[in-house]
């Protein structure tokens, strides 16, 4: 780190100062008129921080007229003469002053540097704002949170991206409806779902109630089914740890011109209801009625938690119970845990990436990929196994006999060879 040093000489012009003092003293003793100007000049010289190397340079200062500067120059000439005659290098002369000055400056710099090093070792480093924030976050993750009945409020969280057709207008409409309905809500970025409810206490701790809402207009539903997002979203909703998933489905006008036959959409909704545990499907006529529904759910939750005097505490995702029992102590996820855990680019395991890589090969189905990973869970383990084979033929057939899928079909020679070639050949 760079530091600016300001070096001030204690006595920048000791020689000239001394002479002036002498002359002033003489003038005072003889009560000459010149003492006044001399006094002024001396004061000016004393306050001047830079070294001066001749009488003429002194002219910049106050009180130094032509005569005084001449006097100084004469004195200087004499002084130099004396110095060269006496060969005394000890007396400070302006000529050597400059080099000495430089040396002295260097010395000071060295001293300061040494001092600085010492200081750094002793004083603890001041944390940057980013590091401070990280520490605060880590502390929050570790902290066990308890909220007794009555110490928390229930707040609806609205996702900032809660839009339909990528239109901010929809978010504004949502907010205005919720305000009309007097629903206490907050807009925030959510990594999963469109609406959540949290219990917040005075200290700012936030626990998530086990209900998550995914709002879809019928045209959104159709487009998400067509490009495959629907199943991925369902998967992520199941993985997030909140046991009650509500699909809030809103009609789009007459539900015609949706991109898919209406019957397919109806079947998809029933499938979601029947085939996935924990999903409820609720139908509403329009945006306003959807918000009324959310308002109603909010009131019901108020009754269910605050009205029933339930106290809450934070739990890990692995310790969440999925059954809805009427217990007085409810274990809930922290909002931060849910947010970080459900983010789309949360960390993957080696196993997951390996499976994804294997799936890139045509005709290698998920059943087959899983059979391989079951036996050789990472690429390294597979390569180790290849290395241990006695012959190349053995290595080529290593995977051929693996049984895949519910019918236990063998992986086959072709795929086994293909994978072996991919990892062991040069191309």
């Amino acid at each position, binding site marked *: 780190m760079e530091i600016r040093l300001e070096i001030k000489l204690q006595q920048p012009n000791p020689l000239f100062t001394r002479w002036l003092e002498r002359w002033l003293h003489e003038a005072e003793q003889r009560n000459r008129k010149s003492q006044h100007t001399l006094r002024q000049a001396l004061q000016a010289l004393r306050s001047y921080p830079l070294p001066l190397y001749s009488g003429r340079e002194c002219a910049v200062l106050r009180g130094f007229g032509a005569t005084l500067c001449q006097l100084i120059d004469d004195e200087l000439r004499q002084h130099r003469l004396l110095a060269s005659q006496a060969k005394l290098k000890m007396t400070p002369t302006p000529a050597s002053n400059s080099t000495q000055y430089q040396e002295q400056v260097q010395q000071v710099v060295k001293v300061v540097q040494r001092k600085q090093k010492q200081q750094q070792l002793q004083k603890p480093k001041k944390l940057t704002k980013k590091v401070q924030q990280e520490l605060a976050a880590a502390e929050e993750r570790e902290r066990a949170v308890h909220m007794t009945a009555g110490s928390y409020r229930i707040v609806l969280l609205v996702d900032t991206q809660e839009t339909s057709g990528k239109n901010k207008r929809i978010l504004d409409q949502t907010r205005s409806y919720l305000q009309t309905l007097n629903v206490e809500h907050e807009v925030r970025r959510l990594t999963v779902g469109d609406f959540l409810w949290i219990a917040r206490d005075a200290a700012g701790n936030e626990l998530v109630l086990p*209900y998550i809402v995914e709002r879809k207009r019928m045209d959104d539903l159709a487009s998400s089914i067509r490009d495959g997002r629907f*199943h*991925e979203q369902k*998967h992520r909703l*199941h993985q997030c740890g909140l046991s*009650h998933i509500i699909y809030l489905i809103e009609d789009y006008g007459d539900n015609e011109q949706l991109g898919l036959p209406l019957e397919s959409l*109806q*079947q998809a909704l*029933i*499938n979601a*209801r*029947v*085939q*996935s545990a924990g999903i409820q*499907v*609720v139908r*509403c*006529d329009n945006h306003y*009625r959807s918000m*009324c*529904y959310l308002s*109603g*759910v909010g*009131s*019901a*939750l108020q009754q*269910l938690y605050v009205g029933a005097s339930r106290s809450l505490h934070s739990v890990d995702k692995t310790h969440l119970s999925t059954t*809805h029992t009427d217990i007085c102590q409810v274990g809930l996820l922290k909002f931060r845990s849910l947010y970080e855990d459900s983010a789309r*680019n*949360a960390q*993957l*395991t*080696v*196993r*997951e*990436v*390996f*499976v*994804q*890589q294997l*799936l*890139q*090969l*045509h005709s290698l189905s*998920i*059943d087959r990929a*899983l059979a391989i990973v079951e036996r050789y869970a*990472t*690429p*390294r383990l597979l390569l180790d196994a290849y290395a241990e084979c006695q012959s190349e033929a053995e290595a080529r057939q290593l995977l051929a006999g693996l049984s895949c899928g*519910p*019918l236990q079909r063998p992986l086959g020679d072709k795929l086994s060879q*293909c994978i072996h*070639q*991919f*990892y*062991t*050949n*040069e*191309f």
Partner: protein
Amino acid sequence: MSNKADKLMKQAMREQQKRIRPGECQKYVRLVLDQGLLLIPWGQELLEKLNNTDLKYEIRSLPARNCIFWERNVGQQTLVAGVELEDAWHMEQQVLLVYAEADFQRALKDHNLGCIKAKLQDAFPALNCQFTVVVPRLRQSKHSHETNALIELQLLQQLHVEQLAQPQCQEFILLLQRYTKAIAELPYKQQRQSILGSFKKYLANDNKQCVRVEQGNGYGRLWQQHLNRLPLVTLEVAESIISQYPCPKRMLQQFADDPQAVQTLADVKIKRSNGPQPLQSERRIGNVLSNKLYTLYTARDPNTLI
């Protein structure tokens, strides 16, 4: 002997797989209706319409009035009355409770809806039964008594609610068809779900660009796809890596032989990025990605995070 057992086992599995296949599976599922349903205003109409569909059904006296559930023929047989062999039917988890208009209005007025769940659970004590209440469609208005009652049914009692538009009987038939299809396909979906559900990331969407490898061609493209599976790898990054390591073997060798391999990889320059830019630091692969690749190809613990 074990060979024969194996064979039988395999045969049984194949049978089972056929039965649960979408398209076939609906033949093995039937409805069971409570006879009380014949007495509701559109009960007779319901029966007529049912007969016009492909749905198989039976009418019995059920432990709870106006209920409907499903049974599946799993291919087993039971001995009946010690004399005959009959197909065994297993009950499925879904149970519907149907409310006609008048009954529903009365229940609302008398605040009787609160004990529905308890009654149903008494009648059908099987674990994990999922109950659905079918009611006529309400006029949705803000905070009305009826809408709140339905919300309470959903949240407080964990019941699903289906609202029938007019004409109720027609809509109900459609509902039954959809439910039957969903229930029939349930085992197949559950099989798939048990595979995909163990992974945090949804894996079934990825194979739109899978690579055909024929007679040694296509491995290069496959290698590129492999690299693309990592979130940080863009097209340019992948191409730069490939220019240095055209096959996985080279990269693996580097990792094995060279102690500085990670640093070497991190320093590989990214080519063809849009010319010299203010953000000079992005022209290398970088330490983060290099470490991820190193972890991916050297870790022996499958749960290591990348």
